């Protein structure tokens, strides 16, 4: 009389379970990765829009000067943006500041931004508006520079004195 399972049955069961669980684990990994990518994308959107909004909120001449300065930086690390650095400097988080800085550094370390400016060359329109293009790029794969992708936002800054 056979009682319990034989070793063979157990092995077969484990093999079957493994076949079943592997894709599930794989889906889990994919999900995590997708969430990670989504997070990065949203983060890129936040960075691009905050950069754009910051320029849009400035008076026209200041915005143009700041945009030209940013354009001059070429591809710049997000954390090298003095504005963001300035915010960190002024964060009143005391003891938690180091942790925050570390977290931010980890989160944004592969984010880069670039600012482009287009002006209307039509006669008399040069000082009325300019088109701002903000590229924010990041690595989709943490260690793979080739996986860098970008998000582009465009806005027009108007001279409200015109």
């Amino acid at each position: 009389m056979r009682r319990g399972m034989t070793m063979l049955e157990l092995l077969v069961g484990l093999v079957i379970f493994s076949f079943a669980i592997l894709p599930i684990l794989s889906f889990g990994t994919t999900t995590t990765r997708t969430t990670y990518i989504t997070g990065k994308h949203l983060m890129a959107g936040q960075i691009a829009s905050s950069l754009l909004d910051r320029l849009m909120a400035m008076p026209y001449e200041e915005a143009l000067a700041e945009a030209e300065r940013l354009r001059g930086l070429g591809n710049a690390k997000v954390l090298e943006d003095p504005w963001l650095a300035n915010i960190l400097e002024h964060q009143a988080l005391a003891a938690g500041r180091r942790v925050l800085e570390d977290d931010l550094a980890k989160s944004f370390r592969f984010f880069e931004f670039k600012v482009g400016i287009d002006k209307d060359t039509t006669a008399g329109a040069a000082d009325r508006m300019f088109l701002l293009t903000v590229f924010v790029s990041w690595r989709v794969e943490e260690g793979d520079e080739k996986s860098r992708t970008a998000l582009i936002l465009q806005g027009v800054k108007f001279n409200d004195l015109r």
Partner: protein
Amino acid sequence: MRTLARPPRRGSVTIILLGLLSVMLFLAFTLFQRQRGHGHLIAFGDAHLYARYFLEAHLGDVIQQLRQKVNDPGTSPADRVLYDFFRGDPTARFPSFYQPSPLVKKIPEQWQELGLDLAPTWEPQARILDPKPLQYPPSLQVPPEFSPGLEKRGIVALTVRATLDNRRYSLSAQVPYSVVCRLNPVLRDFVFFADRIHLEQTRPFGREDKINVTFTKHPDYGQEPPAEFRDYKGMPWFFPMSNRPNDPHANGKVFLGADDKPIYLNLAGELRYRETPVSDLWMVNPRWFRANKDIEQFSANPIFMTRSGSMVRFRGMDIPLNLKGYLAKMGIFGFSHELYDPDNGLFSQTVRTPDSIWGQDPSFMAMTAENKLQLALSSSLKLYGPNYEHTLPLDQPYTGFARQIFGKVYARFLLLTFFEFPSAQGGGQILPYNSDGNFRPPPAPKYHGEETATFEPPEPGQKYTWFMSRIVSGGADRDVLSDDYLPYNLFDPTGKGNRLLLQGKDFQPADGLRLNPNRNGTFEGFAREWMSFDPRLRLGQPGGTLQSRVARIFPNQKAFKEYARLSEGKCWIDGVVYVRGEEGLDLDDLTTKDIRGGIVIVEKGIRLGNITHGFPIKKEPIEDKTLLEQISDYIDALPQSKVLTFVSREGTIRLKGDKHIGVQLVALTPGGGVRDQISWESPRGILFAGGLILDTPNLVARIKEFGRDAGKNVFLYVPSMADAKPETVVQVYPRLDQYDFNLE
């Protein structure tokens, strides 16, 4: 006993397998769904972001074009649809006006290349909400046709739309606007408005009279003023006429107040007739003298010989008396040094002296009590200018020009009357002052003493006092000669040439705005109401004052200068703006012709360089006649839209330059007494075309200031400032309300 064994459970592995596979498939499906959801979320979030920024750009472009086109009449009817719409019926259909700018149009084209299908409608939806007429102070009576159609406020509601990834997005916002006049109502009609000038003449004579301070003399008289009047040798303020002498509005009105305080201006006393280009006696009409019934114009008659052998002539009239050859020769003398000068004066070394003629006149006594030199002092305000009398045929009377002088302003001059009869010597017998209407001077010898002649009024009931020598509008003899107070104004709105004191109730500008007779409206009351400011100034506040017209507030002069585009060689105000900041406003020379007028209210003081409208004016009197003619022509044709108004609320206005064309200055300098409100740093021949609005000019200080360089100081009016149709400007406020981004 055999125990039945359970049959082996075949298929259990299969069941487990199937179960696991089902779970796996379910999980896979769920995860797939979630992944797809994430993808959608990202795409949706991005689309929102793209759409928002694009629609903001689109809306910004629409508003910018709106702002540009509302005040640009353009060159063709198509150009001015917005210009006309905002100045017309706000309930009409909002016209199509928008053409996307190349930069904004480029955005969807670029995104197309990136695979994003963005399709804007490019037809913004616009309409006017809540249009309301702007209010005026209660002291102003606004004709029905003026207010609702002219100055108003409302909201432009705008919506722009675009489709992205088959989703339709819209962005709506509301922009407040107002339509206001480019110039201050009422005040714009004035070339000079001093509503507390009475503080400079607390008494009509002597040291407390700070208005009649100019030491006048004939240009050829050749004598320096005595030491005590040396400071007052500066040229007076000349207010010449425009090229439209018969237009009551084109010459700029004058108000000297307060409304209920009398002001006396000594006339200058030009003795020559039809020879001089400048004088002010013309403002007196012969018909205003009660002794005269028929004479329409003055004549110039030689009266007596001076020590130098020349004949003294005066502007006057010969009134026939009751006997043939008997005349009352009445003539006007202005206040001048020639009148007083004991060495070279008109009466020097004659038996006649000012004292013997007017000595009994209380006005004369009051005037000369402190110093006889008071007779030499004339008004520092010459509210007239070039005179063309000498260009007219002899039979054509010169009626002066139509400048309206408001306030209780009287002309003051000396009347000298000779009783002339056959064989009278030296001009005849002077009729001296005597307050008794029945007085008769002693009989005068006639024909070498063989007979006598006695003055007698030509008609029964006529009084001696109507004919006698006296100071007219003197001030000290009100009870005796109350009807001889002559207003400093020839213009009679009724067209009858009557002598009238023009006051608030008589103010009838071309645009129809009047001081409210139901509220005893006065100029002073209006000016105070209109120019009252609440320190908690906010944009868009309702009200009936200038403050409620403000559409932009600048924190300092730098921001204002950027707005006005001064560095670009422009000066565009286009509305009513307010400049804060302790440093006030300091403008260098403004030589551009590219000026769009408006009202600049400055919280503190103002310093202005020259404002020349492109004329090559140096800092010296303009002697170039061609240039002067060009400037005069330019001023005559200068539209309201090019006139700049500067208002200093709490400071003074200092003029670095002395050439200002198309400028109205308003000084609200706090303080109650006589003080510097508008002054010139180094005048060398002022040319000012526009208007001056203040409490008191501080004439003593100004005359000294002008005297330093002794240039001519000419204050002109810009005729268009009094146009019947006030020029308006549309102000689109810088803020957005009701911002609403929607996925439709």
